[in-house]
């Protein structure tokens, strides 16, 4: 496995004639120590990386061993970034240890992702070379890769050139070599993805569930810790296998439901579960997805997944995006779908369309202990937290700004929240009553609410919810009030920019039609989860996880009928609707095995 990642190459180019190069990807270190593999932003910065998420306490060294083919003197670069450049010391500092020597250069101090020169060292090919990352702060130092070269030429920084350089170094062919074939490939293992996989599998489909985390559930997982809300609709039996209890957001109790969810999904023989695999491309021909390519987040190993039908439940609509599906982002103008609500005017639906969306959150919490607990000064966090003081986070800790894309700028958004959290906690610690408070848990994963929404045959809007509009194909049912969030700083600039407020609309029970759950222009693509076909205000109600879970289950059943009749998703609506509705009705109850009848 290792050989895929630690690439040793003799480059016979004119510049680096006979130069010896070794690239070590940090995420594939033998032992990450206290560092975490962070694959959230690969589309933007190029690769998963190691993140020293110690919440203010330096984490244990990450270490690995490398074999060199040639002895000599090597220049070393580390791909890293200072995540808060400014007039203070960088928050995430670390050093590199090569064999017994810690190199002097303090790393993590350059603006923007790129290569920082770490120094020069002698390497003897006869011995294994031992590399360690020595964290200095515990405040999210980041290391993407370590590069050794006998030639002193800095590797490229620009994302495009870097990708080509990496590919050349790894000598990777364009397509992954291993091909897996399924009836249904589901990408993204939030509640929607899990439910889709289960429903499909129960109907006999051979399913692959590709998910970039070690545990299932997306925002409901123990890693993000949001509790599931909404109703079960037609799919109680399935959703109870994967939902959560109603503990407070951020509660460590989410661990209990985690186990239940993972075990239940794993209990299906015909679901092949690919945990820690992140899809990175989807290739379509003639408006139909042919393959999804995915990469193991630690080892870099790649596989190509082919299937008759695909479900995009990535939240960000990645599969649709890569495959060329129509999508939207931001708020529609109030006239587009007539989503006017006088009480909240512009805050609810703007006169002109814009890029505003509900924001992303990072949940966190602290606890009281029996003894005094220290917390370091965090000057780099203060411009964000200002004098805000808090000891726990909740859903209102949310950040969005029109110049930031919840997808492309997700790392900046996560980092902004980390500054908000550390700064606010540091402020709270100055109060004597919090002397014994200890920062217990801060997620490093950004929990998202809204980004790309793929366009289907029907676009679900606020009015569909408000009027409780009935559809012949209304397969998802919800009663929960519609709520859309906005940043309170829009009303009062003295407010912190990371706190939001919800506007609730209490309406009747409403329905989401099946036609909002498959792509309008990519014929074999379903979507379930917050990236389903809806307007910005339309997402306000159905984005919660049981509702998105219902979408997943609905799609799984539709896929099974698609296979039965060898048709595409749209045709289930036009030709097999009654059978589809009957199938949903029938699945509500656990089947009695023939042996027990």
């Amino acid at each position: 496995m290792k050989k895929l990642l630690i690439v040793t190459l003799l480059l016979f180019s004119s510049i680096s004639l006979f130069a010896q190069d070794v690239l070590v990807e940090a995420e594939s270190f033998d032992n990450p120590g206290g560092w975490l593999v962070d694959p959230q932003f690969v589309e933007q910065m190029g690769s998963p990386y190691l993140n020293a998420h110690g919440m203010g306490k330096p984490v244990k060294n990450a270490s690995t061993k490398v074999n060199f083919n040639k002895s000599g003197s090597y220049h070393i670069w580390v791909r890293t970034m200072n995540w808060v450049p400014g007039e203070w010391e960088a928050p995430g500092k670390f050093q590199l240890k090569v064999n017994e020597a810690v190199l002097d250069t303090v790393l993590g101090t350059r603006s923007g992702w790129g290569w920082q020169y770490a120094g020069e060292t002698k390497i003897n090919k006869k011995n294994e070379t031992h590399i360690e990352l020595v964290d200095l702060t515990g405040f999210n130092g980041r290391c993407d890769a370590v590069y050794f070269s006998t030639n002193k030429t800095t590797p490229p920084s620009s994302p495009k050139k870097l990708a080509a350089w990496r590919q050349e170094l790894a000598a990777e062919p364009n397509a992954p070599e291993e091909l897996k074939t399924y009836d249904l490939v589901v990408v993204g293992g939030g509640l929607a993805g899990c439910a889709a996989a289960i429903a499909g599998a129960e109907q006999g489909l051979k399913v692959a569930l590709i998910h970039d985390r070690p545990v299932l559930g997306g925002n409901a997982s123990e890693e993000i810790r949001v509790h599931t809300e909404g109703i079960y609709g037609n799919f109680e039996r399935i959703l109870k296998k994967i939902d959560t209890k109603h503990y407070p957001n951020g509660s460590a109790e989410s661990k209990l439901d985690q186990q239940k969810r993972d075990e239940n999904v794993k209990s299906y023989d015909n679901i092949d579960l690919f945990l820690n695999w992140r899809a990175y491309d989807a290739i379509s021909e003639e408006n139909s997805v042919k393959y999804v390519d995915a990469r193991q987040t630690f080892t870099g190993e790649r596989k190509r997944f082919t299937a008759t039908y695909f479900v995009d439940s990535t939240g960000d609509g990645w599969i649709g995006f890569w495959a060329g599906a129509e999508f939207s982002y931001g708020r529609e103008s109030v006239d587009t779908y007539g989503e006017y609500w006088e009480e909240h005017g512009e805050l609810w639906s703007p006169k002109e369309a814009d890029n505003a969306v509900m924001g992303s959150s990072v949940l966190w919490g602290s606890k009281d202990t029996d003894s005094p607990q220290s917390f370091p000064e965090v000057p780099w966090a203060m411009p964000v937290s200002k004098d805000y003081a808090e000891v726990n986070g909740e859903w209102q800790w949310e950040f969005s700004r029109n110049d930031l894309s919840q997808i492309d700028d997700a790392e900046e958004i996560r980092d902004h929240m980390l500054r908000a959290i550390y700064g606010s906690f540091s402020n709270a610690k100055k109060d004597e009553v919090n002397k014994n408070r200890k920062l217990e848990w801060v997620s490093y994963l950004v929990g998202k609410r809204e980004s790309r929404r793929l366009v289907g045959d029907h676009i679900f809007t606020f009015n569909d919810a408000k009027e409780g509009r009935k559809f012949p194909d209304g397969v998802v049912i919800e009663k929960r009030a519609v709520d859309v969030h906005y940043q309170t700083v829009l009303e009062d600039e003295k407010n912190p920019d990371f706190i939001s407020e919800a506007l609730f609309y209490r309406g009747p029970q409403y329905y989401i039609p099946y036609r909002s759950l498959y792509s309008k222009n990519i014929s074999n693509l379903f979507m379930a989860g917050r990236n389903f076909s809806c307007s910005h205000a339309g997402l306000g109600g159905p984005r919660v996880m049981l509702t998105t879970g219902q979408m997943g289950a609905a799609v799984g059943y539709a896929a099974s009928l698609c296979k039965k009749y060898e048709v595409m998703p749209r045709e289930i609506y036009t030709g097999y609707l009654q059978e589809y509705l009957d199938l949903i009705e029938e699945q509500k109850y656990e089947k009695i095995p023939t042996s027990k009848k």
Partner: protein
Amino acid sequence: MRRLALGILLLLTHLCEAQFGSAVAFPNSSKKTVLDKSPEFFVLNWKQGTILNRSETPMEIIVDSVGAQKVNIFRDNSDAPVLYSSNIITPVCADGDCRLMHITLYWTLLGDYAGFDRSSEEPLTKHDHDEFLFSDYWKLHELLKDHNSILKRRAIDELVTKPKPSTIEGVDALSGATIKEVKESVVSGALYSCYVAWHLVHGDIKDQIKAFTVAQQTEQMWIRMLNSEHTNYQMYALENLTKNQYDTNFSRISTLFKSGIPLVRSYIIKNLADSFSKEPNKMQPFWDALPYIDINTRSLLLQHIDTASEATVTSISGQLSVLTKNQIRDFLSHLENETKISSEILKNLRAFADSSKEKNSYLVVQFLEDNS
């Protein structure tokens, strides 16, 4: 939800009806037919020397067991409507303990909360009959200002939790511990009064008042609203003014663009989108405001960079520190599309690129590399 809340209110009032005699006469300030100074707790600006005269409206608030409470309108000496008000007497009951609450409430012309006057003879009280302190009135005022309060979405019995005694601090013996978000927004020990007051202010009367105003609105009223410091007035005026009226009030609108809240600013800029390409010179005050406005509005403004004058573009190139990463990117891609970049702009870019204090200088470094 609102109906549920009202139901509980009625139920509560019904339960304790027996304890009241007839409604007590309201003391002094409430009898006033002329307002010559600002209500004590007030959200609007009060100009010195203002005198308002009260007249009746057909609107009323029905308080069960006490009866109809009239809603009045206050007009200035040019007979223009300024404020609505009602002298309220209403029972407040908690766990069988009922009292009458006396308060004079005020609404803006659009039916939003404007303020209140307390009664000097019948002060508000908390659960153990302690009188409200000034700070309690102030907190009530803060609560009433929040039109989106959690009190709106919850029935009164959802607002109190029956806690396990050991886990929740400061258990309120009478009503159970109020849940955290509520606790922060209501007067301690006076949840029921706060709840009743909030629902009176933000109840159905709101829409009736607005409709009453709309029926008599005039251009003068909009202009006064535009010139007010009250955000909802500004927004309402901006929504109603015609293109011509925008032109005649352009100076105020460009001032508001700098001084208003972000929501007002972004509304203005979206409304004036056309003017940027049609009348670039006139839009100079907007460009001048660039460093002072919030990030969202600045992004909206920068969408019009293609129609900005050379001088404006040059000036922005010297203010890159105030722009976010993506705004700098947008600005640079605008420059990239230009046939020629002036030497002054280049000089500014170089200075920014060379600065060690600018976190986004790397973007300009890359740009200069690619475009030299």
